[in-house]
């Protein structure tokens, strides 16, 4: 049980903190910033599954974020659909476009993939910006409704929106946790590790890569749709190149290919940039060097650095105290118990 708590401790700690936060601080502004951060986290989780666990760095995800946002906006404002139907449809539409883009994009690898997706992201931005009759162009889309009430629970107040988005974030984390700690997740990691090797152990790499790509666009779309209904106004800027580099910064600082990374990175950068707001754009003078140093010394980000540190400490402990020889059967029993607990 101790090991179990230790393993999931950070998740439980995060949930408690996030749930209690509104009672600790009555400041609406903080609540607003935090809710936004949760939305970014969902998008960054999507990016993490693709870039961190499968090794494909997509720079189109701001585009997919915008597609999700605009799909929700248009479906509610122009088509007058129920919010929840529109939310589900927005995710489906984003995933469907992700599927088509993935079919082509995943034929490239490494930096070619990054460049290709960068172009796709920019094209999505341009389409949104120029398609005046549909998207409203630079004027944007206004009057997006807040989520409609489910029975007695309404989502008009900032506090209720906070909890709603927290709910989606937690659901995202749960799904991510289960994917990453599963045979499917192992398959993705095998592809990141070596695509040639993955193929020779019988993994259909294209099928799996496409699955990850669609999944990650799904989460980008979900984040976008939640953003639209939270801010209630969207413009083409949300699909611009700078947004994807924000996501990427969050992910890199937090830790590429780690489960805690998206939370740690997003929270850190958002809160630091909030507290440095008096510096305006000169903030970047501080961010730039910090980011560079981080990448040089901790290429796996803060969460990755922590994991490395823990691993080294364990290895040292093992060397200091020669571990008792556990028999094969005994060990597998212990493993079994551990697995049962992990569910």
């Amino acid at each position, binding site marked *: 049980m101790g090991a179990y708590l230790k393993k999931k401790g950070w998740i439980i700690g995060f949930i408690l903190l996030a749930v209690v936060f509104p009672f600790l601080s009555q400041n609406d502004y903080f609540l607003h910033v935090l809710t936004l951060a949760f939305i970014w986290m969902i998008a960054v989780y999507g990016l993490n599954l693709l870039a961190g666990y499968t090794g494909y760095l997509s720079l189109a995800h701001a585009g997919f974020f915008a597609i999700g946002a605009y799909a929700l906006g248009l479906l509610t404002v122009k088509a007058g659909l129920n919010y929840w139907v529109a939310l589900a449809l927005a995710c489906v539409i984003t995933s469907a476009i992700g599927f088509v883009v993935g079919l082509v994009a995943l034929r490239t690898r490494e930096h070619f993939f990054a460049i290709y997706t960068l172009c796709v992201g920019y094209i999505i931005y341009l389409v949104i910006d120029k398609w005046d009759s549909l998207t409203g162009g630079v004027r944007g889309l206004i009057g997006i409704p807040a989520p409609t009430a489910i029975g007695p629970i309404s989502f008009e107040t900032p506090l209720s929106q906070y909890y709603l988005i927290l709910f989606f974030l937690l659901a995202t984390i749960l799904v991510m946790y289960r994917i990453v700690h599963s045979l499917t997740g192992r398959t993705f990691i095998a592809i990141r*590790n*070596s695509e040639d090797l993955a193929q*020779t*152990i*019988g993994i259909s790499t294209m099928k799996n890569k496409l699955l990850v790509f669609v999944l990650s666009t799904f989460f980008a779309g979900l984040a976008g749709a939640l953003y639209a209904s939270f801010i209630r106004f969207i413009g083409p800027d949300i699909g611009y190149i700078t947004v994807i580099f924000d996501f990427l910064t969050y992910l890199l600082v937090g830790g590429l290919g780690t489960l805690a990374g998206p939370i740690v990175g997003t929270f850190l950068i958002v809160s630091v940039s909030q507290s440095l707001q008096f510096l305006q754009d000169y903030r970047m003078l501080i961010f730039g060097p910090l980011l560079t140093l981080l990448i040089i010394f901790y290429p796996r980000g803060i969460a990755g650095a922590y994991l490395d540190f823990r691993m080294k400490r364990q290895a040292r402990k093992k060397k200091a105290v020669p571990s008792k020889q556990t028999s094969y059967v005994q060990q597998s029993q212990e*493993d079994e118990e551990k697995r049962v607990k992990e569910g």
Partner: protein
Amino acid sequence: MFIETRQLTKKFGGLIAVNEVDFTIEKGKINAIIGPNGAGKSTFFNLVSGSYTPSSGQVFYKGKDITKLPPNKIASLGVARTFQTTNLFEQSTVLDNVIVGHRLRTRSNLLDAVLRTKRYKHEEKKCRDKAMEVLDFVELTHVRDELAVNISQEEKKRVAFALALATDPEVVFLDEPTAGINPGETEGLAALMEKMVKRGITVCLIEHKMKMIMKLADKIMVLNYGEKIAEGTSEEIMNNQAVIEAYLGGDASA
């Protein structure tokens, strides 16, 4: 015929890497392919395992034409392989590295993983048990919880074997399995290959260490400049004039 290649040819632009090679791999034996550097041995492997598509010619596995199949399909038919360089995921344990090897024998999908269905739990356990079994087979049970980055070169080779074996293969192609390890360890790996054959798994390997091959292999094919110049048992190869000239540098006393 177990595995047979007919007139197998691969051209890279103007270079003919493998030229009209006819070869049969015999079931339940240790088959070896030898030849000087650049003779086309690895290319031949890549053609059989599906990593490359041949320019012409065919590959048959148990009477079935597998020439055009992608590598993952060929793997699921029971053909496994290792690479010259061992690509392990260094940040996870040896056991974790091997578990994914049995993935191709499972059917659980994303939904099973997210919902943690019965099928998923069953298959997760199946993969884990398989990984334990093959790690036991390659005698690595004692390091299975070590990180892959911390084990020796020889142990890494064994993990690569284990990963290939976890796919439940009938034949395993080993690309220079003993490159870069010392003579004592080489003998250990040779013994492991014999153990695999005893288990009913056919072995086909590329090797540079002549002494070991001559002792180990039941059947040898010699490639030179992409062409098969000899085929037979180790005695036949050792006494073959063409092999002595091409491979051993024309010195009959070698």
